[in-house]
């Protein structure tokens, strides 16, 4: 096999081994943009697996990125738990009011079934259909919200922080319920054909909790989860920082770390060298207004700082490209990676 003939999957696997593939792999973590491709409202788009399958295929055809993304929207797990997601015209879905209004309800929480959720089943059908279409050409990236971060939506952020610091017994019970759900949900996606799982865990970031708290909570939970998820895992802090807990993150059993734009990509690359592949870190909020020239400059800079030696996948810093990011920027990212990302890199 010559380097020029690498498939997206081969490219990604090579960089995960901390070797240089034919070019820098890049993930466009696009969820809602498929609705634009099909000229559907976001609500209609996510109402059928077939729409998301078609949307993902069209997006990849257009931008030539190295992944398929089966993430629907934040809050889909909450729907499975009886909560609501609010769809508005031309706006990203928004989670409704927290499903647990009184923390004492936690005591009565029961196991949450993945199989009984029509919404989660839609994601599984999407994954199965995409696997048939894509085969081993590109990695299919599934998503779970970590048991430790899910309560932000279950309880509301402030109530959850209070629970974490002040109500150990209820906190532990909630984690037990969420952990069982998270493992089932991740493994169901892998069984359906997902290549890897993004373990979104923003609450574990030092942006949100101090390192000492992370070591006694999110770190232990994450290690347990990753050991029970039957496939490769990427830890993602959804814009939160990572370097102060780099040693712990490297021990958790994941292969990839999602990088924040608030940390220098060179520092991240050096910190996680030969331990974790760095995924990032284009500013997902700012890119909404980038010109094609700015986009090219940003992509070039990140590649030159982090691309050498592999162990790097270019992506946004948040794990989901905002709905408002236009086609021109996405195309400019793709063009810039194809121009500046060929190995050996031109400095």
């Amino acid at each position: 096999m010559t380097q020029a003939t690498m498939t997206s999957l081969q490219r990604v696997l090579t960089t995960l081994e901390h070797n240089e593939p034919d070019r820098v792999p890049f993930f466009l973590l696009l969820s809602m943009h498929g609705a634009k491709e099909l000229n559907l409202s976001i609500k209609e788009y996510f109402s059928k697996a077939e729409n998301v399958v078609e949307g993902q295929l069209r997006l990849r055809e257009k931008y030539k990125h190295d992944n398929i993304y089966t993430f629907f929207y934040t809050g889909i797990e909450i729907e499975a738990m009886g909560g609501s997601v609010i769809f508005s015209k031309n706006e990203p879905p928004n989670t409704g009011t927290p499903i647990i209004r009184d923390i004492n309800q936690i005591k009565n929480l029961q196991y949450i079934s993945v199989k009984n959720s029509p919404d989660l089943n839609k994601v599984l059908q999407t994954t199965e259909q995409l696997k048939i279409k894509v085969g081993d050409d590109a990695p299919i990236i599934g998503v779970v919200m970590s048991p430790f971060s899910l309560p932000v939506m279950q309880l509301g952020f402030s109530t959850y922080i209070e629970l974490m610091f002040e109500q150990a017994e209820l906190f532990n019970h909630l984690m037990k319920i969420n952990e069982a759900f998270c493992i089932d949900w991740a493994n169901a996606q892998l069984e359906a054909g997902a290549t890897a799982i993004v373990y979104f865990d923003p609450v574990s970031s030092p942006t949100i909790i101090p390192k000492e708290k992370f070591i006694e909570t999110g770190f232990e939970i994450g290690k347990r989860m990753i050991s029970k998820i039957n496939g490769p895992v990427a830890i993602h802090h959804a814009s939160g920082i990572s370097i102060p807990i780099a040693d712990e993150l490297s021990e958790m059993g994941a292969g990839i770390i999602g990088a924040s734009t608030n940390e220098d990509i060179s520092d991240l690359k050096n910190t996680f060298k030969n331990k974790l592949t760095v995924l990032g870190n284009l500013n997902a909020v700012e890119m909404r207004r980038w010109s094609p020239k700015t986009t090219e400059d940003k992509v070039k800079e990140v590649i030159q700082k982090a691309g050498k030696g592999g162990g790097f996948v270019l992506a946004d810093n948040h794990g989901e490209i905002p709905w408002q990011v236009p086609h021109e920027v996405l195309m400019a990212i793709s063009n810039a990676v194809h121009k500046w990302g060929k190995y050996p890199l031109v400095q």
Partner: protein
Amino acid sequence: MEEIIDKLEQTLLSVNHIASNEILRSVENNFSPIELIEKLIVPAMNRIGDGWEKGTVALSQVYMSGKFIENWVDKILPPGHPQRTDQPQMAIAVLEDYHMLGKRIVYSLLRASGFELKDYGHVTVKKVIKQIQEDKIQILLISTLMLHSALKVKELKEEISKAGISTKIVVGGAPFRFDEELWQEVGADAMAFNANDSIKIIHKLVEGKK
């Protein structure tokens, strides 16, 4: 005093409310409520805010500190206390979003600093326009987490202009921190990088109106 501020900061960061309470109780009789706030509480909370800005303090520590201090200040300077009244009419809200943590942090810090303000919670543009007119709000603080919520400020600002209201809009939260030009794009009057910053901005806006 420096030593007491240090201790208060440390106990707040370690979420040791019993120790924080003991420190405040040990000095409360030496100062008036306002002096205690200005000389001890505000400096300790400023240091915590600076730590957040530098990345050495986590958001949960900022929140837990603010919540404890707000409750404590409510005891020595209850709502409606005369020393709370000489303030601009203010309110805080989240716009078409259910993420309330940032709002709660700013609300607590402002109240812990002796300000009084209304908490509108989760609002739509239409609803908040009505509220700020009824309450004669001079400064409306909008806390955001989601990008689409931040972009809604533009619509709010347009409606404020149409209605001929002079309310100033101060925005803050993740989207504005990640894109430092966004607050101007949506037509806000100011952007606060953090809760402490919002106090400085309020003072500036008040000075500007005199």
